């Protein structure tokens, strides 16, 4: 067909032109007049809050959004200032960021990488957002982090627990405040040893995708180092809604501990099923059968109801922490919305403050300046004790909480009790830890 030829020739010509004038393409880019992507020029600055608003994690997303709105209010000088009063850095003045009023746009990640990227792109391309934050799963966090790296904006990750976010998939423009499976393992191990002893036989049920494998690997490493034996590790499809056929074989496997490497709806259902099958009341060779849920979230614990009682797990933050920062945050969140914030809300709120503070200290919205200000940043007063944003992998290091389901909750929010605040020194790991190998942070990208 003739028009095919024309197309090809035209294409070749375009290619030749573009190839010849590689110095030229600056006029092809939107940011030609700007120093970096979406440099705020007016009296306001726009942040992009990209959270799951539909599908299974919609409630987490809604809580994240509440935290973001609260953070924006505080940054603009509204409300009681929350954690800005307890934050060790005093760069934030309550007059927006660098004197610019903070505005925000919201989007729906649907907990799908594609949709999350589409939403983030629209924030960058259409609304001119200079920073993207949010998310409630690692797949989404990694996908959006990669996008932000390419586009030249900062990504402040929300809830993401997979090692890969700051391991294999780390990016210079991306920062994670949340903890990871490695930290869960190292925080949980001593508590498990103290409560359950050194010679347990563990049975793992693992959600069959990246995060699940990562979680199983970390827990196995640490428990096997204690002397525990791993009897079996079974992968369960993510789409599983009924776990009976995976739970039933546990009964006669000889195991005396069940580790549920599940999150969200998977965790609620597998735990409910495990309790149905009487695992919590079961005795194996004179010892109580135990269940462990390595990653807890209060919203999910609520879904699991009575079943969580007495079950150990780890969490990034909990509203019952008594430090001044946590108290201040719980107070302003609670007074605004009437219930305590979740760990996802906490991470998102803190990430927003940290970003704003880094911009203030750097004196610019330029992602490279912001990244430099965040790298190696030591701070305190945002919950979790003294915290470091490690420069080499952009992972936060802070205290990790070991919690267990509360036996006698006083309210519908009072579901978990803090067993131990594992100090930061104990959960730190080397930059070249094998579980985090293979990634390359790359260079910060300002986009222009």
């Amino acid at each position, binding site marked *: *067909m*003739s*028009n*095919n030829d024309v*197309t090809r020739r035209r*294409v070749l010509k*375009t*290619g*030749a032109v*573009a*190839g010849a004038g*590689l110095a030229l*393409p600056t*006029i*092809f*880019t*939107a940011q030609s007049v700007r120093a970096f992507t979406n440099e705020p020029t007016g009296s306001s600055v726009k942040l992009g809050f990209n959270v799951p*608003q*539909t599908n299974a994690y*919609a409630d987490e*997303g*809604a809580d994240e*959004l509440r935290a973001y709105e609260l953070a924006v209010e505080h940054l603009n000088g509204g409300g009681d200032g929350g954690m800005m009063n307890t934050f060790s850095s005093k760069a934030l003045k309550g007059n927006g960021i660098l004197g610019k009023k903070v505005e*925000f*746009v*919201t*989007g*729906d990640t649907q907990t799908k*990488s*594609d*949709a999350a*990227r*589409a*939403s983030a*792109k*629209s*924030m960058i*391309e*259409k609304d001119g957002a200079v920073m993207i934050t949010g998310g409630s*799963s*690692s*797949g989404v966090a*990694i*996908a959006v982090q*990669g*996008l932000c790296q390419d586009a030249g904006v900062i990504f402040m990750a929300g809830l993401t627990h997979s090692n*890969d976010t700051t391991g294999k*998939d780390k990016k210079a423009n991306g920062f994670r405040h949340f903890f990871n499976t490695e930290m869960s393992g190292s925080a949980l191990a001593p508590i498990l040893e103290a409560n359950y002893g050194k010679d347990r036989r563990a049975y793992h049920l693992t959600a*069959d*995708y*990246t*995060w699940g*494998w990562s979680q199983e690997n970390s827990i196995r490493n640490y428990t096997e180092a204690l002397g525990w034996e791993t009897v079996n590790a079974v*992968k369960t*499809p*993510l*789409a599983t809604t009924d776990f009976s056929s995976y739970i039933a074989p546990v009964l006669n496997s000889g195991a005396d501990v069940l580790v549920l490497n599940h999150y969200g709806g998977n965790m609620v259902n597998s735990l409910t099923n495990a309790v149905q099958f009487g695992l919590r009341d079961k005795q194996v060779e004179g010892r109580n059968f135990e269940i462990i849920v390595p990653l807890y979230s209060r919203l999910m614990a609520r879904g699991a109801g009575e079943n969580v009682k007495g079950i150990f797990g780890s969490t990034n933050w909990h509203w019952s922490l008594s430090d001044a920062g946590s108290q201040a945050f719980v107070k302003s969140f609670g007074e605004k919305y009437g219930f305590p914030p979740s760990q996802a809300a906490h991470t998102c709120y803190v990430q927003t403050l940290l970003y704003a503070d880094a911009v203030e200290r750097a004196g610019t919205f330029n992602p490279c300046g912001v990244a430099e200000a965040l790298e190696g940043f030591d701070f305190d007063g945002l919950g979790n004790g003294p915290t470091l944003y490690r420069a080499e992998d952009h992972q936060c290091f802070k205290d990790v909480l070991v919690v267990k389901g509360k036996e006698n909750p006083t309210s519908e929010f009072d579901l978990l009790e803090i067993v131990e605040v594992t100090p930061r020194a104990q959960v730190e790991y080397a930059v070249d830890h094998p579980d985090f190998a*293979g990634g*390359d942070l*790359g260079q910060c990208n300002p986009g222009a």
Partner: protein
Amino acid sequence: MLGLNKKDTSLLLVVAALTLLAPFILNPFPEGSAMAQFNAGYPDLMQRFVIFGIFAIGFNILFGLTGYLSFGHAAFLGVGSYSAVWIFKLFTYNVLPAIALSVVVAGLFSLLIGFVSLRRSGIYFSILTLAFAQMSFALAYSVLSNPRFNLTNGETGLQVYADDPQWFHRDGLPDLPHLFGLSMRSTYRLDLGAWSFDFNAGYYLCAVVLMVVFYLAIRIFRSPFGMMLRAVKSNQQRMNYTGLNSRPYTLAAFVISGMYAGLAGGLMAAMDPLAGAERMQWTASGEVVLMTILGGTGTLIGPVLGAGFIKYFENIFSKINDNVLHGWFAFLPDGMEDFVVAIIHPFIGKGWHLTLGLLFMLVVIFLPGGLVEGGQRLRNWVRGKPKTENTSGKTEPAE
């Protein structure tokens, strides 16, 4: 022109004009105005309109012409995306080989699945395609991303890493998908007074591809082959009794539409070099079915309209939040403002699914022929013609 009759030529020209001028058409509101929320003329969404348009056009060649309802077409799109990203990882960021391979691989994959599935018809065929696609999704999501044999990178999605070989990549070429050095992300922004319009290289590549495949679709619809496919739809049994074996024709249609899906997947990866498994899930297959029915099954332009409709809701309505609403209705007295916002609140932001569901129902109840019929009725109404007379020259249903 180009072997088309007058009606089809004008349709093609209309589509060409619409796609080429999309940056203007989709950005009718000045930037910074309250209505700018409804602007859709930014590169990512324009690309999506066109890519899903291509996907739906291809789907319609199978469903609209033969009546075979495939519930697994997303698998071909996903396979296309994966092959394109593998080209990026192994060889070069140039999009042409990536897109070419995605079409070829999707074609082969659809040949395989089509060969098996087309042994059955009706809902049995639908379930077979669904089963294949769901198997592909499940395997891509977990089994094929195990550390020993990582073909798909699972949940995270396949993407290009700095330590990938990229044998034909040279310094000086963009570190993103490009066409002989022209980055797919490069955008020229035209500021005209309060308005601003984005002209994006990637979008125009997609637009050119759309015009080509739209032209091909017209040719298929008007060819003897297309006639044969329609015959399959109206009465396959009778055709078989005349001694004609219809299987090669339906298989050809299946493979062609699979290649369209692969092309869409390849373009998607070319615009944004990441391929996630969710692209293959049944909901994604269902989406293209909805796009086609919503737009108008068996019409040429319908699927494109349906694709635009759904993607518009997904990307624009999900981003409207209470803050935006308060901005719009700030002129009302306080109590009224809160009341109006409270009324609209359930339908926007996290409620965009609800709005979409309601619109599905409304469209299918009141416009049995989809959006195309809506357009026809509107036109007839404007021209003052009686409702029953179908004088549309733009489109005609398959039967």
